């Protein structure tokens, strides 16, 4: 097949790096308000009816949202197999904890309202809380560790050896990143609740959301300063080959102070990403106070996008640096799938991602409007 030569390997790798970002942002923005709403559930909802209103606000959409994560897993597997192999096996126990949360969440949604017993329901409410807060925290912790570099290396046959521990992941910088993640998802969930509910629930969501928006800005700025002052970046020290085979060991790299800020210095326009990450939460805060839930949701979504893009801009072309053997670091140029696979996956994505966006938008349109507490009390039109 010659068709795939239409796009160079370099271009395809860049496109898939962007798509990796799109998937992460897609997941964080859509599933993010579910997780945030789950975290807020025990606090924004005081009575059983209020809690059911909150759960029903995400009831029809969480399944679709969670697919972003599954799709993210599949797309990383298909386009960045080494990233998939190294990160999922390296962060093994952390992944297990995330999985525990993500297994319990769908089940909690479905099972909670199937029995009247208040203790039964309270138990599932806390399950929803923990299965929101734990993945949110760990995703952030994982990003923090990626910025620090992860202790892995390859054998000659490309077996992956990971020499870190689970508790090694929980270092101060990574925990700070974890808190950024929790704060931004709580802000996002609060904006969603203001859009979808009214009365006491919306009021409480506004209060918690305002605090979370401020916390997001402060923690994100603190993480930025820590990254600047206390964290070494990585840089490639051999010639950069963008069209070569996907074997990380064909290059050399090393840790270097300030390397994560080199892209910002060389291309000042990339400052736009972290600037968005700092400004958008403040905008979300203002909009929440002005009781504009829908716009606040857009602003908090933009904040999430800015925060994630900022990480991507700092690290490019690194995707997963190795602190143990910097040569083994995975970069955009040496850890992708083959030229042909990247091309096929791009064609498939170009057909289906617009389709997904179209029908997802249609579903949101059908479900547009506030969740009706009275209808829930009467069991009309709501499933949970």
């Amino acid at each position, binding site marked *: 097949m010659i068709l795939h030569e239409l796009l160079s390997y370099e271009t395809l790798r860049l496109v898939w790096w962007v798509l990796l970002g799109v998937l992460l942002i897609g997941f964080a923005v859509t599933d993010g308000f579910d997780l945030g709403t789950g975290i807020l559930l025990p606090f924004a909802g005081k009575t059983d009816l209020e809690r059911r209103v909150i759960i029903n606000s995400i009831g029809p959409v969480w399944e679709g949202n969670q697919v972003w994560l599954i799709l993210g897993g599949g797309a990383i597997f298909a386009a960045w197999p080494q990233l998939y192999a190294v990160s999922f096996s390296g962060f093994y126990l952390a992944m297990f904890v995330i*999985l525990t949360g993500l297994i319990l969440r769908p*089940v909690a949604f479905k099972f909670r309202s199937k029995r*009247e017993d208040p203790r039964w329901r309270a138990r599932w409410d806390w399950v929803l809380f923990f299965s929101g807060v734990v993945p949110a925290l760990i995703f952030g912790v994982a990003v923090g560790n990626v910025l620090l570099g992860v202790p892995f290396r390859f054998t000659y046959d490309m077996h992956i050896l990971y020499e870190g521990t689970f508790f090694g992941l929980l270092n101060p910088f990574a925990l700070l990143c974890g808190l950024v993640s929790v704060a931004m998802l709580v802000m996002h969930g609060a904006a969603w609740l203001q859009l979808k509910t009214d009365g006491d629930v919306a009021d409480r969501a506004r209060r918690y959301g305002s605090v979370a928006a401020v916390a997001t800005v402060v923690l994100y700025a603190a993480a930025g300063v820590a990254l600047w002052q206390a964290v070494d970046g990585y840089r490639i020290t051999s010639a950069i080959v963008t069209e070569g085979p996907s074997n990380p060991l064909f290059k050399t790299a090393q840790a270097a102070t300030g390397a994560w800020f080199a892209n910002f210095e060389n291309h000042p326009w990339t400052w736009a990403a972290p600037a968005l990450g700092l400004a958008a939460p403040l905008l979300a805060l203002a909009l929440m106070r002005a009781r504009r839930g829908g716009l606040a949701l857009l602003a908090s979504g933009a904040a999430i996008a800015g925060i994630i893009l900022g990480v991507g801009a700092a690290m490019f072309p690194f995707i997963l640096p190795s602190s143990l053997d910097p040569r083994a670091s995975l970069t955009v140029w040496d850890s992708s799938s083959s030229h042909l696979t990247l091309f096929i996956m791009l064609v498939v994505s170009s057909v289906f991602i617009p389709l997904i966006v179209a029908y997802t938008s249609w579903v949101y349109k059908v479900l547009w409007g506030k969740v009706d507490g009275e209808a829930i009390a009467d069991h009309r039109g709501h499933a949970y």
Partner: protein
Amino acid sequence: MDFDIVALSRLQFALTALYHFLFVPLTIGLSIILAIMETVYVMTGRTIWRDMVKFWGVLFGINFAMGVATGIVMEFQFGMNWSYYSHYVGDIFGAPLAIEGLMAFFLEATFVGLFFFGWDKLSKRAHLVVTWLVALGSNLSALWILIANGWMQNPVGAALNPQTMRMEVTDFGAVLTNPVAQAKFVHTVSAGYTVAAIFVLGISAWYLLKGRHVALAKRSMTVAAAFGLAASLSVAVLGDESGYQSSEHQKMKLAAIEAMWETEPAPAAFTAFGFPDQQARETHYALHIPMVMGLIGTRSLNTEIPGIAQLVRKGEDTIRDGVVAYDALQTIRAVAPGSPVPAAAKAVFEEKGQALGYALLLKRYVDDPRQATPAQIHQAALDTVPPVAPLFWSFRVMVGLGIFFIALTATFFVLSVRRTLDRHRWLLKVAVLAIPLPWVAVEAGWIVAELGRQPWVIEGVLPTAMAVSHLGVATLLATIAGFAAIYTVLLVIEMKLMLKAIRQGPEEFTVAAVPAAPKGRTHAAPSVNQPQSA
């Protein structure tokens, strides 16, 4: 590679996959049954059919949540526990998984919310479209998963790239049109339809025995019997096709399933019963049916099916070829990137590269396959025989149950045509007792397919023992215990909720879902107790 880690990784994968596969077949089948029922509702306008959709939809929803939750684990587990596998074949295997997400799972999961929440927000026809999209999504999902799985059984359209030390795709069309994948897809979704049909049939039979929800139960039974008969026949036909494909691509699997120790003169006999003994290489108390195996496996009277002993001897030769390929590969890999590859090594690798995987079987005994002794080569060839007795029995359980399902659904199909569904109480009792059996059959089928592939994770390409992540035994024990604990608790809760929903039945669901709260008004909810004219 530490054998404990391999064994534990396999145990965890089998545990989570078998568990996931408790929910998936019912989702696949029930989604179609719901769509059929709703189509009848939209075409006839009779509200009882909508009540049927809503009632079976509640059970569908409980099951669906479990399928989604356990499916996430499957999607992540390749990277977590099988990192060398993910590196080695991710270039091919990852694509169908990602396409499954893009094309199928997104569709299914997005519209399933609307299925439950959209009754009041959509027109009748729009809701019907939504239901069909859920069914389409879940069935397309199975297609892509089985394209991925089919490639593990018959790895077409890919070649090793020495520079990246992994398999890379050479012909994606061949991966898609893999005959093994196609046979498996139809076989597996048909099995899912059968699971759902027997589920609906059995629960409806229970209602008839209790004299409850008679109108709803009878209609559900009619749909289930007709659908189940077609599905169980399709399972058998495509199961036969899978067997035929095995005789082409996985001869050892077929020989092990049949406990065929030695090659027999064509057409070979089918061993209907017996006790396979892997040590002694014979089947005790075997009951043979002449000619049947040869006919099924080769569809001819004069093609031989090779026996286990012959395949092991052939395996030994392939391992020796593989060692030659391994040597050439090392020469090629030693060349610095960008420098020319020695033509001799390249020619050897092109000729023998297909056998490379067989040399990797030696890695269990020796780090460098080139240093292997003849005894080690013989031992590695013996390793190509999967455990015979579990395969032999799983296969017979699966086939026996499959025949029973055809008989059961055919019986109820005749009864429904004659409108005598509730005349024979003992038959209804059989239908109730049959509810768990399809699960036994599909799990047995999974064992036949995946245990029969051992010692390979990718048939002939990558041994299972090489594919695992380098994790600690304690770590693996912890996650196995964790999954086992969570899954057990969830299964108990799931079963309780299912039974509760079934015991409550459709009336509770449509009329009085609020048990305690005093109600100021009653809803105009349609009741299944209303006399039906259909």
